[in-house]
């Protein structure tokens, strides 16, 4: 470091942190220069979130020191971090669900004991921030009614409201649509221009390459390398992360679709609040085909998966291999669906796909636990289930390969592998799969994608729902786009591009004559209005 260069915005020295026997961070040192975007990558469980949580005062380091703008700081709690100008957007948002945006923003940053003045001030401030950084949100909306993307905006607004100069974002794009992600990056670039410092944790190398100035790689609690982004490549980063060469593209042969396996006609679903979420969906998935369903989250994809998976009722017709299935009543639950050959990897593995407190082996039969094959007399044949679980975990390279460990003790990627192993090995005719690689590291993504393709090649029908356009493009044999509870159209991957899909996802079916962003905004606004009207 030469004399003339400014002090690093953040300098961590020798940070260590253990959670009981787990050494999450080992003697980590890192410098982040002001006015830059600094990326951090690493496998699931590498210790990225822990490190950042220490910087933000959420956890306390066992040893090490923190300097902000060259000054030694003792960050014992988040208040101290905030005072030092640090803001953080956590991987799992820290918002109060039944509070308004405004209330969430002022929480902990109120002026005085009365709420009213704080709220009034924050309202004005939010308006200003929204204009400056394209961070529009309705200040009076309840968080639970906002999309994830908007919730994230609230988190960023919270940090900016507290006048953060250093902003940490932990896997911010994991839950965003491509459009939302682009939007976020524009915001981040704007912030960088203003001289703010940003630390970005992500699993997506594309994002690292696109926006960061420097990137640090973590592995098993240690910092293995810090490189200038301009001087590295995705392949090199992947190797640094995982410790071996990783294939970044999906290798697959062209599809040979056969007979229709899953036929959906005029499917409609009204949710508990009386809002129509599916407005007459018709779709066909064929044998040996991956149908990718693209769309901004909240446009009915989740509901479609829920209906198909038997978690909720609907009207219309669904045929499996030509036979109609029950949509309401006794035979419309998840187990009946499984009996008809529909396997379901749900979007939310923490709340749906897994019972986090169950052991891995218990989770390998979740939903299939009434299968006569695993019963012996009135009881479940636990020994056999465990043995089978062990075999599955070995085949799917679940780490650690210990079937007695509770599901919550596995990293996201490995949890996903447990779900996949269960659903794929049930030998279904149809696999419904939602957000297969959300929050999963590169090594695991590669593996998961290979499994999906292998299943297709084994002649199964696959319905893939993902908000990752990259994933949709690289896996799908056919792409359908959903918007506002309807299918906007279907395309072959070879005959379309991200721009066209992006428009369809925003409900624009024809190439507009006006600038694209305007058309998109118009459609979105119209949809928002319709929804607001329904709520009244």
């Amino acid at each position, binding site marked *: 470091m030469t004399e003339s260069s400014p002090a690093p915005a953040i300098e961590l020295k020798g940070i260590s942190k253990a959670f*009981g*026997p787990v050494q999450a961070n080992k003697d980590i040192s890192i410098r982040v220069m002001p006015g830059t975007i600094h990326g951090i990558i690493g496998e699931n469980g590498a210790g990225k979130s822990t490190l950042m949580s220490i910087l933000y005062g959420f956890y306390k380091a066992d040893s090490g020191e923190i300097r902000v703008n060259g000054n030694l700081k003792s960050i014992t709690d988040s208040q101290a971090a905030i005072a030092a100008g640090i803001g953080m957007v956590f991987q799992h948002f820290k918002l109060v669900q039944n509070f308004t945006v405004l209330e969430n923003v002022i929480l902990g940053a109120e002026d005085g004991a009365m709420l009213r003045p704080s709220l009034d001030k924050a309202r004005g401030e939010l308006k200003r921030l929204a204009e400056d950084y394209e961070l529009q949100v309705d200040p009076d909306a309840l968080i639970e009614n906002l999309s994830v993307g908007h919730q994230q905006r609230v988190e960023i607004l919270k940090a900016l409201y507290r006048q953060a100069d250093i902003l940490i974002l932990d896997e911010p794009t994991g839950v965003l649509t491509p459009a939302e992600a682009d939007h976020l990056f524009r915001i981040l670039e704007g912030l960088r221009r203003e001289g703010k410092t940003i630390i970005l944790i992500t699993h997506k190398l594309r994002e690292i390459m696109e926006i960061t100035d420097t990137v640090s790689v973590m592995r098993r609690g240690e910092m293995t390398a810090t490189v200038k982004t301009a001087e590295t490549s995705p392949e090199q980063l992947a190797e640094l992360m995982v410790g071996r060469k990783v294939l970044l593209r999906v290798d697959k042969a062209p599809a040979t679709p056969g007979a229709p396996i899953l036929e959906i006609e005029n499917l409609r679903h009204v949710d508990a609040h009386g809002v129509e979420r599916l407005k007459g969906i018709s779709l066909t998935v064929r044998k040996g085909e991956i149908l990718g369903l693209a769309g901004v989250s909240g446009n009915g994809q989740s509901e479609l998966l829920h209906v198909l998976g038997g978690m909720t009722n609907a009207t219309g017709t669904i045929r499996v291999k030509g036979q109609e299935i029950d949509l309401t009543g006794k035979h419309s639950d998840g187990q009946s669906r499984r009996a008809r050959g529909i396997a379901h990897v749900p979007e939310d593995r923490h709340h749906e796909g897994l019972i986090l*407190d169950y052991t891995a082996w*218990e989770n390998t039969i*979740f*939903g299939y*636990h009434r299968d006569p094959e695993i019963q012996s007399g009135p009881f479940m044949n*636990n020994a056999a289930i465990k043995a089978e679980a062990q075999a599955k975990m070995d085949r799917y390279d679940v780490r650690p390969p210990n079937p007695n460990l509770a599901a919550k*003790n596995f990293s996201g990627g490995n949890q996903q592998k447990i779900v996949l192993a269960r659903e794929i090995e049930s030998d279904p005719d149809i696999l419904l799969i939602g957000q297969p690689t959300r929050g999963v590291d590169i090594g695991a993504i590669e593996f998961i994608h290979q499994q999906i393709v292998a299943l297709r090649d084994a002649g199964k029908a696959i319905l893939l729902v993902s908000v990752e356009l990259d994933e949709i493009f690289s896996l799908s044999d056919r792409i359908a786009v959903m918007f506002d509870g309807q299918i906007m159209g279907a395309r072959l991957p070879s005959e379309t591009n991200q721009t066209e899909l992006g428009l369809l996802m925003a409900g624009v079916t024809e190439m507009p004559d006006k600038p694209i962003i305007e058309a998109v905004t118009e459609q979105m606004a119209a949809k928002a209005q319709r929804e607001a009207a329904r709520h009244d």
Partner: protein
Amino acid sequence: MDKMPAWADAVLVPLISILIAAVLSALVIAALGMNPFEAFQLMVEGALMKSSGWGYTLYYATNFIFTGLAVAVAFHARMFNIGGEGQAQIGGLGVALACLFIPWPHWSLALIAATLAAALFGAAWAYIPAILQAKRGSHIVITTIMFNFIAAALINYVLVNLLRPAGAMEPATATFPAATSLPTFQQMFSTSETVLFRGSPANITFFIAVAACIGVWLLIWRTRLGYELRAFGFSETGAKYAGISPVKITVVSMLISGALAGLMAINATMGEAERLVLNASEGAGFIGIAVALMGRSHPVGVFLAALLFGFLYQGGAELAFWANIPRELVTVIQALVILFTGALDNLVRWPLERAFLAFRPKGAQ
């Protein structure tokens, strides 16, 4: 991965916790002007050093096993059944009807009938709160509290106005026919030379309680229903994904819970009192909550916790017999035991974990 070996968590933590509770109890006893060591000796001798003491300890424990299991089963489905008290009393009504109105030729038949009746009545009393929770979302905690009061009123009405033998002063049913009298431990284990368990109320129901422990263990960890019940308890959305009906699980778990609470009546009503009296559950439904929580809702834990409480009850009685100590002292000791083993267990666990971690070889994970 674990911070400390499982045996330490299962044995060391509760043991030290009980020790702390004992020390505090000793202070209270000393404050009342009595020698705590003598008091402790009295308790142990009275409750554990002779067979008749065991006879009482096990009798109380039997009650607590049933009510503890009842709470535990509901807990696995994340349901808080505070209604054990009412369910046990209504179970007693079932037992009374079965014993009084059918002329049984042999106790074994009567026992089977009474067991069924107790379970059925207890389950029925749990059914309404359960169905209201499942279908209408009425909070089970309130409804079961309310049903305790309603049960007391109902039993009072029945005993005062319907089942009381004419002219009897006591609001109780007639004594059950001799043929329904259950074998006591004294009858079962005494030999011609030695009388064991003399006069104590422990009876064959204890083995039903043990069987219930095993049954609940099998149910929860070995059957599909148990699997679904626990899954539902951990995550309702997860259960939905797996095709498990929340309504069914709510109702079924509460029925089982109510039946178990009802079974307490075969011990207290058929085995001991041999007639149904007012307030026959005597708070065992509430002790069951503590027992289940302390036993971590596991049948083995419930069994051990029930034994502990049986010991406290019987030991406390001994104290009262020979030391003229107000009976509220036992309540205080119970409170301390519940507090330290059940709620302040981390007070012991954390330092222990640190100690174990410190002695762990470096690098091992």
